[in-house]
């Protein structure tokens, strides 16, 4: 933050602005936080009282853990969690390997064909075959309804690759040259020098890819037909967007249970978001750094 340390003379207008600014920021924070707060509070409220309540919620309306026990008892939530973790770990690993390989290759200088490859790669950022042809390719490869369909087709995000390439191009040539003179192969250079040196950037990309896998649902909805392979987000979509939640609601037959449907959605949001919220404070600085890495020229 650029701060003006010199507090020489502050006009009343400036003072007024400062106060306004502080208050406005506070207000903004409330707007950012309140929806989360509301969801938490609603999720532990008694459904009937919640329904009867009108307007903003400041405290739970009665206390009930019914929604959570419904959500946590639901095997599909856990299946979804398991799948998502699989996609995040395996997918991100594969992403990083491919991205690093690509970035390393394209960051080397003096290669005749690198320019063509670069153009070929960058072109894909601006033009693609689209939804249906991509689907046809994936099914043609036999990846339809395979977990790999969520891992292989998106192996390289060209955007992320370029971030990586920039980082690698920024490594001083002398490091590589000295290693080469000692007879190191390119793979050795890559693993012994480039990867350690660019580790901060790689960390950022791990986060980018990881979050991407965590949030992804659309390709899963196209490429998977077997619900046992569904990631969490796709299942969330069924519950939150399509209101396909009866399997949560173990006995929608009764009045209470019909009402419970109300709070189950809130509880589901919490259950699905808590891991991110818990990790967020620890990861925040990497993300912030990621934006810098991604947006500013080296």
């Amino acid at each position: 933050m650029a701060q003006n340390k010199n507090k020489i003379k502050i006009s009343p207008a400036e003072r007024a602005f400062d106060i306004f600014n502080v208050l406005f920021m506070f207000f903004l924070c409330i707007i950012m936080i309140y929806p989360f707060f509301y969801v938490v509070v609603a999720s532990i409220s008694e459904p009937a009282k919640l329904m009867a309540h009108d307007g903003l919620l400041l405290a739970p309306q009665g206390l009930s853990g019914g929604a959570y026990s419904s959500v946590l008892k639901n095997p599909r939530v856990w299946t979804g969690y398991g799948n998502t973790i699989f996609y995040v770990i395996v997918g991100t690993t594969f992403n990083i390997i491919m991205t690093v390989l690509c970035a390393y290759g394209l960051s080397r200088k003096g290669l005749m064909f690198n320019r063509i490859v670069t153009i070929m790669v960058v072109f894909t950022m601006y033009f693609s075959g689209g939804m249906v042809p991509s689907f046809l390719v994936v099914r043609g490869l036999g990846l339809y309804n395979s977990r790999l369909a969520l891992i292989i087709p998106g192996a390289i995000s060209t955007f992320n690759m370029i971030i990586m390439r920039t980082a690698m191009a920024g490594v001083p040539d002398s490091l590589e040259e000295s290693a080469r003179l000692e007879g190191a192969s390119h793979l050795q250079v890559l693993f012994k020098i480039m990867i350690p040196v660019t580790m901060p950037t790689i960390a950022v990309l791990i986060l980018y890819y990881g979050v991407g896998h965590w949030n992804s649902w659309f390709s899963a909805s196209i490429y998977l037909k077997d619900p046992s392979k569904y990631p969490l987000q796709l299942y969330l979509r069924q519950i939150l967007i399509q209101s396909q939640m009866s399997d949560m609601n173990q006995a929608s037959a009764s009045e209470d249970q019909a009402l419970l449907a109300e709070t189950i959605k809130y509880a589901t949001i919490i259950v699905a978001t808590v891991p991110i919220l818990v990790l967020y404070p620890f990861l925040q600085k990497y993300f912030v750094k990621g934006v810098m890495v991604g947006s500013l020229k080296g």
Partner: protein
Amino acid sequence: MSIKKVSAVVLAAAMLTAMTACSSPSSSTPPASGSGSTAPSNSSTAPSGGDTSSTASGSETSGSDSVYPMSGDKKLTYWVGVSVSNYNDNNAKLPLWQELMKRTGITIEFQHPAVGQEQENFNLMLASGEYPDIIESKYAEPAAMMEDEIIIDLTDVLPQYAPNLYNYLKANPDIDRQVKNDDGQYLLFPFIRPDPVLQVSSGPIARKDWLDELGLGMPETIDEWTAMLTAFRDQKGAEVPLAFDSSGNLDRLMYAWETVNDFVNENGKVEYGYLRPGYKDFLIQMNQWFKDGLLDNNYPTSTRDILNTNILTGKTGATYGSGGSYLGVWLSSKPSEPATYDLCGLKYPVLKKGDVNYHGGNVQFEFSNSNGWAMISTQCKDVEAAARFLDYGYSEEGHVLYNFGIEGESYTVQNGEYTYTDAMFNNPDGKSVSDTLGYYVRATGSGPFIQDPGYIMQYYQTQQQKDALSRWADQQQKSTKMPAIVHTTDEATEFTNIMNDIKTYIKEEQVKFIMGTRSMDTFDDFINQIKSMKIDRAIEIKQGALDRFFNR
């Protein structure tokens, strides 16, 4: 093949048929070959509970039954919607299917479309080029699929491997010609509802206790409906007196204006319901109800969960639903207050007192032309196994299994009747009857078998449900329903493309008209727009197919 009919069941059905006074001509040909109305003499002919139960009975089995269980390690893949989606994610977990696999000796690996994305998943499955052995989906276009070589021609398969179905079709030419394409090739294994009581399943529902309290009686005309809804709103504090769980169900009220939300067959001439004159009046009335706060102003995005809540908490007094999973559920989950809480089925409303509803609840044929049909794909390696598996549903034992489940678990034989056990009706976890039964039978839904009227008379436990059934079936004699006509691939493509656009357009504009965001003055533009989207061509295609059907 001789499927035992149970006297009491038939009696009950007959009573109902009499009440509805509109038995369709072929209703007298239920899958009974041996005189249907004779009760099986108690123990000797009671169906054996499958091959495993060692009752001395079951000797009646015809020759074709002896092929079960098939030997060898038979495995098939089966595309079908998940049963009892409330609690289940794979049919292989359900007793019904486990029993089916055991009896037929065929292991089924299920492929279930995601609930709520059935159509999308079905389309993707077709596009994936990998077809399961058996495909059961209401989104299928069987004739076009055969042309595209996605499913096989069953003409030679049925006599050879599916004698039960084949014989049934031979005995029922009306159904027979609906499961064929124009060239006379057999396309599919149908879902058959031989009895008229099975062909009606849903209709208007209202709060009986409110009607009684308000002294309104059962409304029959639209004007009486208006009075009822107004009274619900003003005197019972109903926030949304009339609510639906989908806009499609609102469309059922169109019948009062002698039109429907689809194509109709007016004496051999195809018409599109939305172009019939009554449609505009329907919109005007719905708009009025909407303006007066009688119609749920969220109806286009409403869901079953919301409707459940509205009904059970007294926000809604009138709606539309089926007798089992709507009316039945709402009756059994009676809220604590008011103590008088009660529901009833209403007749489909008409405009003038004494009129008979144009379409009514009888939206199904004996042959269900949308649900429960199963096809064998061209990628099926073991056509015999697939055909035998599907044919089991039409066999004597299969009939009992699909309709009543497993003896001792879901039913017992009492006085010669297949009677569901108490466990089906009193689930300890509070599951509804439709869900509990869904574990054991397919009769509550649809599938490749012949539905037994005995199922519904037990499934509908309450008098309210049974009464509702008879009221819903009250409709004019003339059938305007389209039979199961088929399109060629090119026709199907063209037709679907035209109709997708038109349907989307109508759905959007209908909401605007009803909500008043589009003026009724522009109704003519609306009709013209539909015409410019080539509705005439779509009608032409339908007409051609209908003509071919009658010429088969």
